[in-house]
């Protein structure tokens, strides 16, 4: 019936643009296809295609003598992935990702809580930009800044010498795993830079989660006799948890895949990202590099599945 009315009252448009417009109006699915085709070709075909091609390569192997890729389906590369040195790399990266995530959450929570609950007006803007500017400022410049700070002749050493705590730094650096020649070539340095660079990714989701907690819920808890610690433990923390999990998706995933931070600030022991980079570059072993990239994908897949069950995606 609508079609009839349309034909009586409104004549078809003239000109190619008008006719095209009418055609799209009558065939909305064609319009949808025309709109979706370019982005889907780009992302769905070029991008997803490359990803699958990469994953496929992990089932090939490399010929030890010629160094050429042997295009036969095999699990040999995965067996190689599970060798002791490679497992070491995986374990090192995953533990680093875990403590970086934990530390980021600890530092992020007060900032996010203050920004969500107490900051108002001008302060709200200040907090917003204060989180956004470090988030968006250059990744390499941030790493560079820490190279300046952690260098032997840098500000940390200078400050500790001023307050006569130099011995504390020396004692820390003489510890077996976390120490090293200077902070900029130790795991401690790598850890600090990871926390620094990913911190804003943790603050934003926690803040988003906390902003949804009504203020009178906190009041109700203290009216009912809850101490601040109890209120935090039983009211605030459970409500913020989805935000923390959402933030940890970023900190965990970004740490798993990064190869630049441990290369510039850290000891010579490899992380997953560096192993991938070395395997595809100097070693020319694309199958093993591809197998290495499967590790973060699998870990993040499992992580995302758990996060989804906890409702973390609503806080994104």
């Amino acid at each position, binding site marked *: 019936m609508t079609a009839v009315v349309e034909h009586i009252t409104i004549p078809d448009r003239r000109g190619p643009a008008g006719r095209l417009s009418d055609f799209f109006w009558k065939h909305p699915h064609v319009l949808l296809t025309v709109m979706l085709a370019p982005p889907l070709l780009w992302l769905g075909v070029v991008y997803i295609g490359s990803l699958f091609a990469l994953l496929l390569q992990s089932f090939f192997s490399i010929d030890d003598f010629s160094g050429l890729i042997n295009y036969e389906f095999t699990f040999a590369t995965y067996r190689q992935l599970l060798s002791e040195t490679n497992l070491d790399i995986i374990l090192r990266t995953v533990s680093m990702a875990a403590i970086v995530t934990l530390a980021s959450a600890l530092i992020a929570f007060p900032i996010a*809580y203050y920004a969500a609950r*107490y900051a108002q007006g001008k302060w709200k803007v200040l907090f917003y930009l*204060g989180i956004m500017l470090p988030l968006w400022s250059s990744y390499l410049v941030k790493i560079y800044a820490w190279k300046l700070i952690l260098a032997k*002749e840098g500000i940390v050493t200078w400050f500790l010498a001023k307050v006569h705590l130099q011995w504390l730094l020396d004692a820390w650096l003489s510890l077996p795993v976390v120490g090293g020649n200077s902070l900029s070539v130790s795991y401690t340095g790598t850890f600090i830079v990871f926390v620094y660079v990913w911190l804003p990714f943790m603050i934003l989701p926690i803040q988003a989660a906390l902003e949804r907690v009504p203020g009178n819920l906190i009041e109700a808890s203290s009216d009912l006799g809850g101490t601040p610690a109890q209120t935090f433990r039983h009211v605030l923390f459970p409500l913020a948890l989805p935000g923390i999990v959402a933030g940890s998706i970023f900190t965990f995933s970004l740490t*798993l895949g990064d190869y630049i931070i441990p290369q510039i600030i850290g000891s010579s022991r490899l992380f997953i990202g560096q192993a991938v980079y070395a395997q595809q570059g100097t070693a020319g072993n694309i199958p093993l590099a591809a197998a290495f990239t499967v590790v*973060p994908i699998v870990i*993040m897949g499992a992580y995302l599945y758990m996060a989804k069950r906890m409702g973390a995606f609503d806080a994104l």
Partner: protein
Amino acid sequence: MRSDRLNRSPLGLKIAAAAGLAFMHVPILLIFLYAFTTEEKSYQFPPPGLTTQWFAVAWNRPDVWAALTLSVKVASIATAVALVLGTLCAAAVSQTRFFGRETISLLVILPIALPGIITGIALRSAFSMAEIPFSFWTIVLGHATFCIVVVYNNAVARFRRISGSLIEASMDLGADGFQTFRYIILPNIGTALLAGGMLAFALSFDEVIVTTFTAGQQSTLPIWMLEELIRPRQRPVTNVVAMIVVLVTFLPILGAYYLTRDGDQIAGGGK
């Protein structure tokens, strides 16, 4: 209404929040200080003296200019591509309902959700399998892939706020689809697209991980920085370039903030 007592924050929280913010900003401020140091060979603190001579030195470096020009070109084209593709995707997802809508959102977010190294190596091996030589365009292709998401996020948030009756009214008054787009939709999403475009530009301008895999011999500004970080040769010039990069990326962020501050969606929240 909150009571007065609860409206005041506990001192401990205040200190922790202030310390956290200081932790986030002091390193960036130090970059500004180091750009003026007279020390050439080390990262000595405090700087033995202050000078502006390194700005002139950096200004006269052809390699810095070449890297900067390449970065700006790549970022401009990648942003333009991302604007078109991101807007199309956002329009399709928010104006219509169809099977697989959720999958499309996931697809758009994927290049930024997966670690950059995976995107980089996947594109690199695809290029070499298809025997595409590395060039300016391979860099652009990589950048546009992960820039789509920022444009998409900004555009989707704005599309949600345009009421459907506005578009229907335009159609009822006799405008065709293109006129409706030109006079109704575009003015409404304009600032969101501008904000998304600025963020995409900043993202591309700063990208290094994917670029190391998709660039051949060319070096963008971040690649130039990375080489200086691994093998420091020109510390004073690097200091100056670092400061300029900070300033250049701050402008689009502030701009994007002022363009979208009235909205419900935080621009840049989805980096």
